[in-house]
């Protein structure tokens, strides 16, 4: 991959960087890798116990799928993740906007958010269990809580950094203070807000899976831990694969949504 031409915009340069990580071109190398894995595992070059050949993993996935258990677990993880994300956005975005516009709100929440960002939220798991039990509620709430921090932060910064002159133009053209927030400020901050949400998509899945691993029941995490107890590595890998694909699909779908919503934004290039 060559360096971008000298008059490439920042956006083009960004696309030539690890944007390709989620593009289709490396698929051949990936296939080559998978084939190498298959061969090495079958020939016992890698210990097939720890790293069974992909074909067996897929076979196992099919078996589990037939038993409908996989779908159940997948649905469990997916729904919890979506619920957590919805909650996080519904609470986080308004809070971020409020922080940017109302001084007392900012005074109170700014240290809390900045203090909380580097703290590993999963450490709070025992507290959430104590308060909300072992079932869905604690998992969804902890995930939503953990994802809220980056979302609030991104929303706050995006709203705060809206070009003052754009706001002044809107005022100049007769926009009332209420319409100003929704019609102008929010739209202008949308790119940053959507980026913040995009960042937490994989985080949501990971934390949901983690809480499932810690508490059992349904969900990919629970499936993985249960299989691990019986040293059923194939099932574990099926679970890992499912979680990875889920994350990948979610990011891709969100990117499409973002492109649609932000067609006007200068970073949305026509060829991406």
């Amino acid at each position: 991959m060559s360096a971008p031409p000298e008059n490439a915009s920042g956006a083009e340069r960004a696309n030539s960087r690890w944007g390709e990580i989620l593009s289709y071109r490396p698929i051949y190398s990936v296939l080559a890798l998978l084939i190498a894995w298959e061969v090495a595992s079958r020939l016992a070059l890698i210990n097939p116990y720890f790293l069974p050949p992909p074909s067996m993993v897929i076979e196992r996935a099919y078996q589990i799928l037939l038993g409908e258990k996989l779908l159940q677990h997948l649905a469990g993880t997916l729904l919890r993740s979506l619920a957590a994300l919805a909650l996080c956005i519904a609470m986080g975005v308004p809070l971020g906007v409020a922080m940017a516009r109302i001084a007392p709100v900012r005074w109170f929440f700014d240290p809390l958010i900045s203090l909380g960002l580097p703290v590993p939220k999963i450490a709070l798991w025992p507290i959430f269990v104590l308060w909300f039990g072992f079932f869905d509620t604690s998992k969804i709430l902890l995930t939503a809580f953990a994802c809220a921090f980056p979302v609030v932060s991104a929303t706050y910064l995006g709203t705060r950094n809206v070009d003052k002159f754009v706001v002044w133009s809107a005022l100049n053209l007769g926009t009332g203070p209420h319409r100003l927030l929704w019609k102008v400020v929010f739209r202008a901050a949308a790119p940053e807000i959507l980026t913040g949400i995009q960042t937490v998509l994989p985080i949501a899945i990971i934390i949901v899976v983690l809480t499932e691993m810690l508490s059992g029941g349904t969900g990919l995490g629970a499936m993985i831990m249960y299989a691990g107890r019986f040293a059923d590595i194939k099932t574990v890998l099926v679970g890992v694969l499912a979680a990875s694909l889920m994350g990948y699909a979610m990011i891709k779908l969100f990117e499409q949504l973002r492109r649609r919503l932000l067609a006007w934004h200068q970073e949305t290039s026509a060829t991406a």
Partner: protein
Amino acid sequence: MGAIDAVGVSKRYRLDRKREVTALEGVDLEVGQNEFVALVGPSGCGKSTFLYMVGGFLEVSEGRILVNGAPVRGPGPDRGIVFQHFALFPWLTVRRNVLYGLEERGVPLEERQRVARDLITLVGLAGFEDVYPKQLSGGMKQRVAIARTLALDPEILLMDEPFGALDAQTREMMQDELLRIWGLRRKTVLFITHDVREAVYLADRVAVMTARPGKIKALVDTRHDRSQNAAALMASPEFARSVNEIWEIVREEALAAQRLEARSGDLGSPSRP
């Protein structure tokens, strides 16, 4: 009574707990109806600050600003403003940008479509109605900004170095465009620029502001024969005389500003956080 009457206007603001900056001190300026006044001065002298106060975006610390006899109370469509960096709404197309003010005012659909269409044609952007700002060049963006502001037909036009972000050729083209538009729809214009030639070319009168704390140092009449073409005008001795006269004063103030900076360290300007 002029369209804009600034009397003894001062602007002070607090940098932090200890330091206070006086951006403007006792500015007196009168802009007559349908007059084109340019305001020049060294960088950081407060010309933009003054404009923002006329626009109602900043508050006056002392003195008063009257627009058609009434004191300024916040921003409003009667004093349309055009900013240096266009400040278009990037999520709206050219047409939607121009329609924005009309929608806010509640103008009926047919009329506002018509007004927008006429204005987009007036500024020479017919055919670009459904394009997003990101696809436009600097000059085109500025034309959209002007069309958007003119949509509400303000009596007064405030322009904050509107051509400062454009390259030299586009700038010259836009200057003539502005004069053409102003000829068709006469308004009162207060135009900020640091380019003295531009000021003399466009304006009826040029006001020169001192270094910070800014006040009006001089007012030069630059009404000249606009019937001749731009090249001839700019080559004429009257033009050169006006430019030199004004440039001397600005230079003096620019040097004073440098000395001020060196002495106290740069304190920054209020409009650029």
